């Protein structure tokens, strides 16, 4: 009885807004395809964040990670972050004032060590707003999106695997 309890609410989801796209998927993240999806001839900069699963936590060896989401709610939160990032840049008075397009993709299910769990790509006219938008959106996803990570450690029973908290 060591397997995690499957949640029928943790499913693939996708939502497009005026500012880009939010995706939850059990499939491996294709970083290049995600970068290509924000390409724009008016963009002089593309910032990309790739979060990958780390192999250690406090000296313990991480064997795999498991991500679960309340997809219906998480995809709304991620879409809201897409839209609020634009507002955030205006508040920060970042030169240029906006980004062109953003894609936020988060992986669900079992993610082997070393694979991406999140990829955020942002295109913008200039580098400053691309960097700012990418970092701010990532921080909001970590803070708000209804997604949970469970770490499995080498030599420990699977039922002892720990659900993490970002706070």
């Amino acid at each position: 009885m060591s397997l995690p309890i499957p949640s029928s609410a943790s499913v693939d989801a996708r939502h497009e807004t005026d500012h880009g796209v939010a995706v939850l998927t059990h499939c491996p993240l294709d970083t290049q395809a995600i970068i290509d999806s924000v390409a724009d001839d008016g963009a002089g900069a593309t910032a990309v964040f790739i979060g990958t699963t780390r192999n250690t936590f406090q000296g313990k060896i991480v064997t795999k990670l498991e991500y679960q989401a309340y997809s219906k709610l998480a995809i709304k939160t991620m879409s809201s972050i897409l839209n609020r990032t634009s507002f955030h840049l205006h508040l920060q008075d970042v030169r240029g004032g906006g980004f062109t397009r953003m894609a936020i993709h988060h992986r669900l299910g079992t993610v082997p060590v070393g694979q991406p769990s999140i990829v955020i790509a942002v295109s913008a006219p200039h580098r400053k707003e691309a960097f700012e938008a990418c970092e701010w959106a990532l921080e909001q996803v970590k803070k708000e999106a209804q997604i949970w990570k469970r770490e499995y450690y080498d030599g420990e029973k699977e039922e002892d695997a720990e659900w993490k908290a970002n706070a």
Partner: protein
Amino acid sequence: MSDSSPEVTVLYFAGASTATGTSSERVRLSSPGPQPLSSLSSLLLSLHPGAGLEHVLRTCQWSVDAEMVEDPDSVLLKGGEEVAVIPPVSGG
């Protein structure tokens, strides 16, 4: 009979699902008529005694029909809602 008591679906995620041993259940509220969301905690604890759920719920937020709830006292459950226990998130 308690047929007029509202019934809701409760979703559990992460540590809340580990504590209850389930990811989803139908729960009939304890008395007829709409009831505040804040009354649901004690009902869930009575359904899962000794499961460590009390400790988990202390850090959780709630959503109703896929909307985060700011104040559980101000939301009334009328029946048919999808209520979710939202533990501290850890995406990224």
